[in-house]
């Protein structure tokens, strides 16, 4: 029988890695990710988890170590945040290009300068094009579910891609919530053993990571893109299998009370739960409003998004990152591009908020819905608006 316990989201992610029976964990401490590797180190020290815990000297080495371990067939896990994710940026591309299915949780954090240990999505957006499968979580339960779901999908022989599980620094990592923990048997049923087909083995010598001259490189890159796009089928299948066993069904794009709604708000991560309260409040007042929670960030769920937004007139997109000198928030830019060629599409209005840990309350989401409608109607000289900036 599964049990319901109070767990911090970070500890929930660590628990998921334990139940996935990871072989190698390599991590470097960084706020606000710290509780994940700390908990895993504790599990290894107490014999609750039979794994190699490698306390590396940097995030760059954390992921590099995971690459080596994955290449000999070990199930590998790491966790990072903000500047740590940026520091391993170069390695991110190698993980996906070499098809090494590492799972990494990211406690989303702002980037310097000024130094901020608090949360936003700047780190995630900087890693957008690195070729990883990327999902966002709303709460502790999802931090648990997505983490071990990630092993199932990333290690699928038809996928073999690394997976990033994003959850908001502090707003989620340090929050204790009820989490339903499954039985080990259920997890084992969902998650088969990892069998990497291209292991480094003296009996079958293989060359991994050779360099590509111009007559090979573009084909290699195209194959990689095709692989990431095609992984969506396994992602959806994985969500379904997960739901059939654990009775919690996830989707790439998750509509909330969108039926017949003229205005939609689109959010990602833990702020979606706050935004849902704003939707409920407004719905109670009789407003035609709904919400889209974007769970799958890469590969981008074009079809699902178009389907979810097709009947709306206005789509208000909320970003926790600025694309400096660009079109506004990276998510809104992506949404616009996904809808641009559609015959019938909503007007997209872009808001940025929650930067560097600044809280977004229910009233702030109510504000961006109202303001979004007004901008959609009257137009605006600005490409986007940052919420709650003091004069």
């Amino acid at each position: 029988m599964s049990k319901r316990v109070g767990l911090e989201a970070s500890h929930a992610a660590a628990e998921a890695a334990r139940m996935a029976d990871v072989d190698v964990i390599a991590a470097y401490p960084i706020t606000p990710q710290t509780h994940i590797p700390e908990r895993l180190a504790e599990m290894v020290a107490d014999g609750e988890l039979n794994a190699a815990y490698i306390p590396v000297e940097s995030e760059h080495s954390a992921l590099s170590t995971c690459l080596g371990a994955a290449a000999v067939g070990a199930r590998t896990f790491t966790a990072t945040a903000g500047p740590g994710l940026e520091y391993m940026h170069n390695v991110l591309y190698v993980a996906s290009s070499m098809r090494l299915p590492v799972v990494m949780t990211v406690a989303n954090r702002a980037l310097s300068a000024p130094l901020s240990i608090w949360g936003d999505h700047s780190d995630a957006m900087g890693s957008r094009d690195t070729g990883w499968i990327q999902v966002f979580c709303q709460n502790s339960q999802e931090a648990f579910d997505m983490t071990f779901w990630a092993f199932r999908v990333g290690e699928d022989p038809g996928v073999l891609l690394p997976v990033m599980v994003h959850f908001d620094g502090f707003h989620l990592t340090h929050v204790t919530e009820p989490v339903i923990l499954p039985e080990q048997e259920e997890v084992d049923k969902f998650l088969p053993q990892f069998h990497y087909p291209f292991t480094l083995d003296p009996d079958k010598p293989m060359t991994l990571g050779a360099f590509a001259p111009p007559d090979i490189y573009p084909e290699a890159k195209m194959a990689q893109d095709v692989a990431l796009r095609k992984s969506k089928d396994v992602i959806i299948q994985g969500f379904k299998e997960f739901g059939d066993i654990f009775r919690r069904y996830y989707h790439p794009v998750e509509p909330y009370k969108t039926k017949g709604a003229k205005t939609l708000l689109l959010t990602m991560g833990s702020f979606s739960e706050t935004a849902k309260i704003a939707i409920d409040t407004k719905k109670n007042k009789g407003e035609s409003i709904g919400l889209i929670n974007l769970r799958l960030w890469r590969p981008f769920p074009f079809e699902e998004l178009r389907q979810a937004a097709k009947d709306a007139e206005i789509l208000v997109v909320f970003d926790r990152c600025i694309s400096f000198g660009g079109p506004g928030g990276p998510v809104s830019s992506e949404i616009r591009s996904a809808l641009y060629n559609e015959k019938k599409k909503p007007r997209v209005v872009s808001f940025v908020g929650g930067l560097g840990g600044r809280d977004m309350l229910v009233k702030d989401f109510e504000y961006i819905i109202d303001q979004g409608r007004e901008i959609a109607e009257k137009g605006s000289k600005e490409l986007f608006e940052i919420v709650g900036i003091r004069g």
Partner: protein
Amino acid sequence: MKEKFIKFGKNLVTAEEFLAEGHSFCTGCGEALALRLACKALGRNVIIANATGCIEVCTSPLPVTSWRVPWIHTLFENVAATASGIEAGLKILMRKGKMPERDIKCVAVAGDGGTSDIGVQALSGAFERNHDFLYLCFDNEAYMNTGIQRSSATPYGASTTTAPAGKLSIGQTTWKKNMPEIAVAHNIPYVATACPSYPFDLMNKVKKGGEVKGPAYVHIFSPCPTGWRHAIDLAIEIGRLAVETGIFPLYEVENGRYKLNVDRSKLRPVGEYLKPQGRFRHLLEGEIETIQEHVNELIASILLTYYNT
């Protein structure tokens, strides 16, 4: 299958080649020879992690490979970390019964830039964590693959493309970073210096480094005709002169104890080593004298350490 050997004097060397012919190293490359010998010494049961550099580029252009042993390249700066993962991965998989128990040596291969500059942090971390791996630094004293740019391993007075000799400069104005001593400072069980001009010594050291439990480091002096601008048939002689002049002393440090065979009275003047190389051509007698004094100090310091341990 019975293993074949080739006899050189009293030495038997395996006839098997783990680095295939057809690679694209420059003619007369000292490093390619050193690598081939190192591979022979290591044998079949290895996994090699390679940093970006001459060796990586000359042996792995898709769709072909020179490697007859399992080999991985990920990036320039992280080979020690990649090797850490391989070593830890193998160990835990065997412990968990997911892989049959066997002896597989994890070997990291990098150049001097990948070791003493951009990779030094990852290397220091891997030493400190006590991974059971062998690190081979093939030192050709600059970023040769990129186009002869200076590294921290470039010797004083050498002209490179980013520290060129000119009216106001003698080229490299700093002394070569002493990477073997940095390795020794990590208190690892085995550190050695080697040179392909002494092939059996090199193979013995690589073999020993591979057999040691814990981290081992072998620093291999690799003459580079292209970057050092010496004749293509001189790599072996230049390597020998580097050792005989004391520019690159050969020694081993086993569990902190030094083993060396240097007779200070028999050292040849450094000029004999410097003069055949175009990279030192601009040096004047006074500058050669400065280098001689530095070498004298280096040798004195090594001998002192030797007598103290």
